[in-house]
């Protein structure tokens, strides 16, 4: 976020590669960004975390958003998840314009359609793994059984542990279980392996890829690790607040094959 100001001029050099919408997506269009800007004003300074972003994401895709620190990828993710609002432009989700939503409508959108996996897991420390997942029942009808969701991520034996009693990988898997328990149409992951070692990270990636491949969920993952580009159906590269390129992978690698 802090490196933004000095590189303002480079925004114009963006090279747009392969924006052809028809060539990539397997399913129908789930998300569409139209000239989306996110502007921050601090006193007299203003800067764009995201400027004139245009992109589409198809249902069931595994999308990786790649970019260095401060490029605007987290902003992109926040806007996708309805966790922040755009300064201008339109964000369409299944045809509905998120930018026109009220706060309450946006909350409902998050509750019903979006699952989030955070870099630092963000579990509620005073609740057990099971309870953290069961929490979702409070906000959405028709969530999966917490025990099943936890079994899906391989945590059937650790259900009643508190976050502080679990390893990082286990916590992240709990966090994924919490996200998928809602059966969201969109699963957003913010550097999900950022705090994990390679081995555990690979397990988590595998889990996410399975979500997309087997359960046909749309998974959007933000990372600065370019090795992950190999496993995605679509790779969106972000730089200096703009979309640098969108590349479709015809034959994505299996998550278990990735090393970094």
């Amino acid at each position: 976020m802090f490196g933004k100001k000095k590189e303002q001029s480079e925004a114009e050099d963006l090279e747009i590669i392969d924006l052809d919408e028809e060539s990539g997506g397997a399913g129908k269009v789930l998300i569409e960004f139209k000239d989306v800007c996110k502007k921050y004003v601090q006193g007299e300074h203003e800067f764009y975390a995201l400027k004139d972003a245009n992109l589409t994401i198809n249902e069931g895709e595994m999308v990786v958003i790649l970019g260095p620190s401060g490029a605007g990828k987290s902003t992109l993710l926040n806007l996708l998840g309805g966790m922040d609002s755009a300064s201008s432009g339109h964000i369409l989700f299944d045809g509905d314009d998120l930018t026109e939503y009220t706060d309450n409508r946006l909350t409902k959108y998050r509750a019903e359609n979006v699952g989030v996996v955070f870099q630092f897991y963000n579990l509620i420390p005073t609740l057990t793994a099971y309870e953290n997942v069961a929490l979702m029942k409070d906000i959405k009808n028709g969530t999966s059984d917490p025990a099943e969701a936890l079994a899906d991520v391989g945590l059937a034996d650790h259900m009643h542990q508190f976050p502080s009693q679990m390893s990082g990988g286990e916590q992240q898997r709990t966090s994924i279980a919490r996200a998928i328990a809602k059966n969201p149409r969109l699963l957003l992951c913010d550097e999900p392996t950022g705090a994990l070692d390679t081995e555990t990270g690979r397990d988590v990636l595998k889990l996410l890829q399975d979500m997309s491949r087997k359960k046909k969920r749309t998974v959007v993952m933000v990372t600065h690790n370019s090795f992950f580009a190999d496993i995605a159906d679509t790779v969106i590269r972000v730089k200096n607040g703009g979309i640098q390129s969108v590349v479709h992978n015809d034959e994505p690698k299996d998550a278990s094959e990735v090393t970094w």
Partner: protein
Amino acid sequence: MLFRKMRRDLMKNKTQFISIFLMSFLGMLVFVGMDSESAGAGAAAAAYYKQYNLCDIWIAGAGFSDDDIRTAKKVSGVTDVEKRLVLTGTAEKYDNAYMYVNFMDTNRINSLMLYDGVPYEAEADGVWLEEWFARTNGIKIGDTFTVKIDSTKIDATVKGIVDAPDYVYFVSESDVMYPNYKKTGLAFMSSSMFPDSAHIVYNQLLVDVRDGLDDDAHISSIKEKLEKAFDREDIAVTDRNQNLSYATFDAEVKQHSAMGIMFAVVFLAIALLGIVTTMARVTAGQRTQIGTMKALGFSKTTITLHYISYGFVISAMGCITGAWVGYATMPPWILGMFTGSYLVPDLKGKITTLDITATLIAIAVATLVSFLSCRKELKDPPAITLKPPAPKKIRHSGLEKSRLWLCLDFATQWNIRDVLRNKMRSLMGILGVMGCAMLLICGFGCFDSINGLMGKMYGELMTASNKILLSADAGSGYAYDLSEKYRGQLIMETSVEFVSEKAKKSGTATIIDKGNFVHIQDRDLNPVKLDKGGIAMTNKMATLLELDEGDFVKWHLVGDDKWQYTRIAQIYRDPSIQGITMYRSVFEDMEYKFRPTAVLTNMSVDPSLSDADEVSTVMNVADMKASFAETMEMMNAMVYIMVVAAVLLGVVVLYNLGVLSFVEKTREVATLKVLGFNSGRIRNILQKQNIWLTVIGIAVGLYAGWAMLYVICTTVSETLDMYPIISGPTYAYSILGTFLVSVSVNFMFSGKVRTIDMVDALKGVE
């Protein structure tokens, strides 16, 4: 699930929530305790007055007959009138107890409440005695009771043990201001028992007015009509508010309720401060969790409700249990002490709507306060809340820019910055210390003031060691002889009624003869000489009448129809007797006869003297002081409450504060440790700040304590003119006590410095 989260969060921050619980508990305990006590006492008295038909208007004077009853009955609004003869006498067999003897016919007004024996009947033989007096003196139904009125003895069989609604509080001449119902009794007899019943002359008319007319405006209009109907200068028409028994009890009840509110406000204010700081810290600490919940799709309302439920649950638990415990314990305790002072049956606590409203309001305010403190974390979109908060904008204070700053050592600089940047926390610390010091000063100050009062009454204003009270049948000759024999000073104390444009009050006139045992002091308590040619009025009486030196006051002796219009030559202060003082010569110039009622002397008095018919009692200073101290039990109870409250308050607030600031400072302290500061030095730094705040808190608390004591002293009663006195030892104990509480609580926390694990504390912030 959120409920489980709340439960576990409460457990995790239990010290702070326990302190909030305790503060709201104590606040409501004191408030509801005192309020239900005063409400219960008020309600018990009201029920008693209603059931036994307490008189609405008294007409005092001499020589009332049945004609007068007819005159009074003709006044519209008056439903019933009865006549009585009230005399004072002594019961020699019972330690010369002072007796109010009531001769009456029918007993429809001020009816007697029967404990034992047979109900009173007109024309019946026998005597009905007051219950406390009978019980403590071991008098039983069927005993023969002898009362001496002047020189006449009346023997009667005890027929009943009773209480009367017009005598819930009464004192004898010799009780300074607190009643002693073992030595002061009530006797009720039929007029037919009066020795010369054919020529009985009644001195009181009891007037009952129609029900529903008993509000002040109606009563005073009826009073005016009665005064007109009688058109006599020698009668006094008074209502309940001017009646000693009714007014004293009423004032006592009101005072308790005022004290209760004062205490409760202090506690609840601090409980709320505790909630603000604690909730602000809890929500700030859970910022990421709040962000997560928002991102997961929890609505603002759900999250808000979740966090305000912390404040709600704790304060509701505290307030409700506090209210309940207060109601269950305080009324029995305080009303238990009442029983020696006020003869009201069925004294018990009563929950009022105010108690319930206050409890609900306290809970509501606590909930609101927790809402306000978590609102900050809720207003941003989740993307912002998920990130750690932006560092506080810190500006350099003026002090930090000045050159002086550079001369300060690191600890001072660090602490000044810490205090300035955590103003709320520092303020709360100061307030906690202040409350502690204030209550201690006020509590011990009450003792000082009472001691000061006694010292003044029996050491400076009245310097005789014995007071011989003469009975009504002692002639002047006897008094002079006695005075000569004991080298004493004669004084006359008599009841007086004062009238100014603003008020009508009754008080005492003290007329002094030659001698040197009676002294007066001016408003600033400097000894002054009594004006030789005029009258001096007490400060309290002058204040009540809204008069000052140089003004004129209208007054007359009770039972004498001659009114005086006299200039107040001097204002003096007297702690316990309100009215006027003058020299005998001034009194005689007004063409009154000087009839001594007591002899003051410094010589030892033969105990057998009190057996003489002409002497009613001999009191020595030690007796007077002891009986006075004994009757200050109620005040002592207040003091205990205050001292216990002070220490609790100090410990709870400072402990809470300690937890708060310690958690907040953990990282800073760990950094200092990494930099090579040893634990001892860090502890000194932390303790230093605590000492500053404590010193400020004590300084403010001393003043606040004095103010609170002043309020208590000036409102304590109409007849007491107490001066707030705070002695050296009180200052010392209060300051040391507060310091001890503050420093030892802080010591517990600074002791934890050693246990902070540098690595753990400095590991990444999530």
